[in-house]
Structure formats: C-alpha cells, structure tokens
C-alpha cells in the first residue's frame, strides 16, 4: 500500500496544514514507508479482541460543575497575538 499525492493533500486539508506542492513527493515516500510499517499490525487476527483505549481502565474523574477559580480571562489573554476589546481577532469569516 502507498500514500498518493491525493491522500497527502486530503490529510493536509483535514489537518489544516498548508503543504508546498514541491514537498508532496517526499511526503508520499516517507508516509508510505510509515504506512507499510504500520501494516505489520495486519499480520494477526484480532476479530475477537476488545479495543483498549486507555491503559488504566478506571478513568475520567469528574467534579461538580461549579466555579472554583477566579476569572482568569485577562491572564489567558495577555499572550494572545491579536486582541480587540477582550476578543481574539481573526480574518473576516462571514460576508
């Protein structure tokens, strides 16, 4: 199996990473090698095995939905690159 340039373009679109078209052949080559290596997993039958998502199965402790910290908005905003009146700014999204 190999990764085609169409695959690379589609993955890059889904992952929102722009890729220079001159780099696509090297991505195809490297990612195909990685994919072939990953395909070694297909050598065993796992039909009856339950997937394991997490090593320790007692997970995701939750807490009551109450505010426990003071407003940290200013703290979080101070390192943002582009702010206007307490809002993050991005290029226009709606015409």
């Amino acid at each position, binding site marked *: 199996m190999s990764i085609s340039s169409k695959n690379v373009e589609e993955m890059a679109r889904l992952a929102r990473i722009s890729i220079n078209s001159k780099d696509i052949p090297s991505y195809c080559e*490297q990612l195909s090698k*990685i994919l072939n290596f*990953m395909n070694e*997993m297909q050598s065993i039958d796992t039909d009856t095995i339950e*997937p394991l998502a997490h090593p320790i199965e007692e*997970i*995701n402790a939750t807490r009551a939905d109450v505010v426990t910290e003071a407003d940290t908005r200013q703290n979080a905003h101070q390192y943002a690159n582009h702010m206007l009146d307490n809002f993050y700014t*991005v290029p226009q999204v709606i015409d």
Partner: protein
Amino acid sequence: MHDVILSTVSTLKEGLLSKKYSSVELTTEYLDRIATIDTSTNSFITVCEEEALRQAARADELIKQGKAGVLTGIPYANKDIFCTKNIRTTCGSKMLDNFIAPYNATVVEKCMDAGMVMLGKTNMDEFAMGSSNETSYYGRANNPWDLTRVSGGSSGGSAAAIAARLAPLATGSDTGGSIRQPSAFCGISGLKPTYGRVSRYGMIAFGSSLDQGGPMAHCVEDLALLLSVIAGHDHKDSTSNKRGPEDFSRHLNKSIKSKVIGIPKEYFSNNLNPEIQIIIDEAIKHIEKLGAKIKDVSLPSTSLVVPTYYVLASAECSSNMSRYDGVRFGHRCEDPNSIDDLYERSRAEGFGDEVKRRILMGTYALSSGYYDAYYEKAQKIRRLVKNDYISVFKDVDFLIGPTCPSIAFHAETFAHDPVQMYLSDVYTVSANLAGLPSLSLPAGFTQGMPVGMQITGNYFKESELLSLGHAYQTNTDWHNRYTTEKLGR
C-alpha cells in the same frame, strides 16, 4: 565546592543543613557550570538565573527557620514540556517560541512547594516527538559522553544535563520511552512511573493515554526523592490515580531475595547489538547473585508493539495538536487572508517536519475508511500487549532487558529514515501501551558509551522497582561514572 557536583542529593542536603554551603552558593555553582559547559551540550533551552537565585534565597531562609523539607534548596532542571508561570515554555517548538503559560504545571507547583530551585527549562524533541533530540527547534542536546552522538529523546536535554552534572535532578516525560531511552544513552537513571501516578496537568499533551511525567537523576536513591515530591493524586488531571503521596525512599533497602525476575526471550533477538547483550546478561547475573530468581518468559506481542504504538501516538498527537491554531496563543502567520489561511500557514510555519508527519499519519489513521484498519486495530493489539503483561506478572515480580537495541547513535544517522528511528523504541513503548512503571539504569559501557538496563514492574509497584534498582547500584558503580573531564572540567 567542585566536589558537590559528584554528590548524591542526600549529601547535598547534609551540606545545606550543616551550613557547609547555602542554596544560593550551590545554585551559583550549577549556574556557572551551565554557563561554561552547556555551550557544548545544549541541554537547556532557557536558563532561569534570576528566578533560580530568588528561589535559592527563599530556600536558605526556610532552612534557617528550620522549616526545610527533604528537597528544600536542591536545584533541578525542568523539561520544557512542563508549563511555568512567567517563564516561557516552548516544548521544543517554534510554535511556542514565545509562549508564556498563565499557570504552573502541577509537577512544577509541587517542586516549588518543596522549596526546590529550578535552574532552567531543558531541551527536548519538538512536542516530545522524537528519539534523538534532533527534532528540537533549538538544535539537539548533545551527548556529554561524545558530543557527536545524540542524547536521545525526547527528554534528551534533561538526560544530558544530569550526565554533564549541570543539575542533580531533572524532570522528564515519557510517551514511548522519552525518559528511559535518553537515560540509557547518557548513562543516568530514569523512571517512567505507572500511568496516572504523576499529574499530567500543565504537561503539554502529545499522546494523552500514553504520556507520563517522571524523575531523572544520577542514581535510584535520588529518583526516589524526586518521585516522592512529584507523585500523588491531582484533581486537576481527570486520569490522575487516587493514591495519595508516598515516601518512595522508605523501602529502598528492602531485600530483593526471592524476588522473581522474568527475562523476555523476545528482547534478546538478532536485532540486539551483541555487545549490549553481553552487558545485560552480566547485569542479570549480578542481580541473581543478589538473591533474585531468574525465569525465562515470553511477551508474544513484542514484534507488533512499535507499529501499534506509532498508530496510537500519531492519532492522539493529531488530535492534541489541533489546539495550535494561531488564534489564541503560539505562532501566528503574517497577514492571513482568510481563517483557513490563518490556520494552515500558522501550523505549516510553526510545526517542524516530524510533528507534521505524525499529524498527517494520525489524521490518516483516524479518517473515515481507515479508522477500523489502523486506529481500532492498534487499540485491539494494545489489549493483547496489556494481556501479555498481566499474564507474565502472575509468575514474576519484574522484567529485565536492555533499554535500547543500540548505544547512542551519531547525529543525523536516521535523518531520512523515520521508520528506522521508530524501531529504536522497540523495548520501551510497550510499558506505555500497558501503562506500567519502568526504570532505566546504567549497566555498563561499550565503545566508551553507556548502556542502559530496563526493569519493568507491575502496576504501582514503583517502590519495589526502586528497591531492586537501589540494590543493583549499591553493588555496582556504573551510575558513578562521569564525563566532566571530557567536557573540560
């Protein structure tokens, strides 16, 4: 003062309590060494001179008032994956070159509460993705035993700093071997605790079901001291284990007589460097002489652990990396002409090649049409890997083998072959897939380079693991070898 750099942390502690030197003097000694030696090793991304001296002065005050804890006034190096308030946290990436976290990681908070002194933030592979430190945006940390070789990854900066005696203790994180492999390459001791033992809050996420923070040091005795400070339940981490704080130094001298050591036959295959095999065989004989029983065992899924790990780690990486969008923090491209242009160029410019490769592979493994064949398949094999361990730990207390199939390799050896680089993680990734605690210790030298022995234990058996490691180090001196002469001091 120069002798202090060869001391154990307990000796440093005695020096502080007996007023032989102050924490400010001790900290200054390490900062001076960093200024002189780290130009060769490149183990720090950020050195926090002013803050360290402030923390040391505060520690001296606590010692004077008789309020010192076990590690009060002891300097440490902090992997640059742990968020630090008011001090930048880069995670080895251009993406976070200017990032200053608005809060401290729990590990950092615990070290501060213990009165420890943070010397700086150590070098690492970008977002902890790498086995050689070569993916760092800040250049690789070099191996103090031979500067033309890699320090390992991803916690290579912490390992190099300990080996070059630039810090007595360091933090690391381990997603697929990132504490143990650089520890082996640099001839130091490193422990990946059981998943959930050390809080992940504020430790920048890569593979959330695999990531675990842990201690790195010259010897097991020092690992136990740092683990006692950083371990424990944290309500801010939803996967943190409920166990409370523990004193991991308490049982260090417990006898290892009658403990059963399993030797996985798959770890001694043809891929293992024969010189390393001889060293590990010797170490196993040594442990047998100390009273442990040796038993041959099998971990049948070993041949599949690396591909399985790379599917899961890449999938979790692609999900975790999605937060870097150029909007709220981190790198933002110049003059974006649309929201998609903002995302796509900020990420293209901010991430390095290896991170991009993993995001793309992870996106592939999770995408419609491939999910069952890759992501779900890998989760099923993960169950088999865990079952292998559950089965083997019915008969043995520990598993011993090499930490890595080779000694530290020369820089750029695998520059064009990511798969060969991935294969160097063959012995370490399974402890992350299963969530088990695992220790790497120096066990000998070949070609002038250190060789690591890996000891894996059952869930939450860190105390037993450390007592076995301590028994080995009490009877050997590989952990006392140092490289400072080669570094000009």
